[in-house]
């Protein structure tokens, strides 16, 4: 689903991502971990056609990132780390516009939005001004934005940040269901290592723009003689993730 070689991106003197190789197969849930500023968001923005790599090549969802960005966009969903809606709009209206931009017809769009609002536990939010949403509700609207067109490949950038435990568990179930029922491939970042442990088939750890470890949670723990992913993380980056997350 994703094959990247030597993907790099610099911002002026800052080398945010330094030549990473990625291979993700269909139906995998891959966790992309790393301390703040490691290059996670930059990598995701490159793979989602939003940011031009300084160098490297990639095929995403079977299409070349450079030659065929439109076809890549059609096949992927992206939930960014930040917000997706401004303060002056209605939840339903924004979601329906997004669905239409993905090519859904008007009736399909309306139906799909209703469905997702229910699935993401946002009942009756259709006519709500976005400014009136709580942080966690807004986050779930962001998540819905990436699911409207039933993408085969889903990029989630810290999707559960700001969600309460129940919403988080709900999202995990949702992600698992997408994979089990529809074979959706999921590439997600998170700062919650127990989340990565519970949800992901495979973990990639990035630090200073380079992949420093990869494997299933069990393999990583075995390789570093560690009991938890936290210990693995500490061993390969020299940092506690929580410390980084708080910074």
């Amino acid at each position, binding site marked *: 689903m994703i094959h990247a070689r030597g993907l790099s991106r610099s911002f002026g003197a800052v080398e945010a991502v330094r030549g990473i190789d990625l291979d993700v197969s269909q139906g995998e849930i891959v966790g992309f971990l790393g301390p703040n500023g490691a290059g996670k968001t930059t990598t995701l923005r*490159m793979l*989602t*056609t*939003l*940011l*031009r*790599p300084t160098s490297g090549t*990639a095929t995403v969802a079977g299409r070349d*990132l*450079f030659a065929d*960005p*439109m*076809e*890549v*966009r*059609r096949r*992927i969903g*992206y939930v*960014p780390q*930040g*917000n*997706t*809606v*401004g*303060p*002056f*709009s209605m939840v339903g*209206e924004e979601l329906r*516009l*997004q669905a*239409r*931009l*993905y*090519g859904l017809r*008007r009736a399909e769009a309306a139906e799909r939005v209703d469905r997702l609002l229910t699935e993401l536990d946002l009942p009756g939010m259709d006519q709500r001004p976005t400014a009136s949403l709580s942080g966690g509700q807004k986050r779930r609207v962001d998540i819905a*934005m990436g699911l409207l067109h039933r993408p085969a490949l889903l990029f989630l950038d810290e999707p559960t940040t700001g969600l309460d435990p129940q919403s988080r568990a709900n999202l995990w179930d949702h992600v698992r269901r997408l994979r089990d029922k529809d074979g959706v491939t999921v590439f997600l970042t998170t700062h919650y290592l127990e989340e990565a442990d519970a949800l992901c088939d495979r973990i990639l750890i990035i630090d200073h723009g380079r992949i420093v470890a990869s494997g299933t949670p069990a393999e990583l723990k075995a390789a570093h003689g560690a009991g938890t992913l936290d210990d693995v993380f500490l061993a390969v980056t020299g940092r506690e993730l929580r410390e980084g997350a708080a910074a």
Partner: protein
Amino acid sequence: MSALVPLTAYYLRATFKSRFAVVFGAVQPLFFLLLFGPLFARSGVGSWDTLVPGLLVQLALMSSGLVGFGIVFDQRFGVLERLRVTPAGRTSLLLGRVLKDSVVLLVQAAAIVALGYAFGLRAPLPGVLLGLLLMVFLSVGMASVSYAAALTIRQELFAPLMSTLVIPLMLLSGALLPMSLAPAWLDAVSRFTPFRYAVEALRALFAGSYASSEVLWGVLVSAVFVVAGVVIGTRLFQRENA
């Protein structure tokens, strides 16, 4: 292009939710009509038929020139990235906004023309309609340039820079006083601004001379401006694309 319809509809709905903003956008030319028009009509320089076309181009400049401000917010709130990650055509992402701006402008311009008739405008209706058409066409270029500027220059600089820039462009277009009154150097400078040709074309249309060279030049220059604006605007929506 299939994204163009939902985008334009969405932006129109959002804009007309706040009618105040639509009305407020036309306030400046309305002041000119109300407080400067009576003076102008008695100055011997020209009639309402000379002034109203100028005020329409002024409106197109002021109203469309500042539309880019809207995209600054979209950029800040992540809306722009959300739109850019969809397969919607990059030209549609630009033109959806621009078409909305054109509709708003047309509503505002209609108000000015109606008021102009109340004051003493005598222009033939076909000429006025053709003039409005040319003005809207020109505004597509202006709005595109405004969005391009908003996506390029630093966010906090956009509003002061653009609102300052439109003033010399407006004065040089001869919107307020015809450039036939200008000293040679000013006349020469004004020929380098596209809006002068639009003003002269609108005045010719309002005077009923539809096949004049002014109209031809106005259409030609506006067309070049529009194409350039849309191409540059689309490029900028594409800019960071992989």
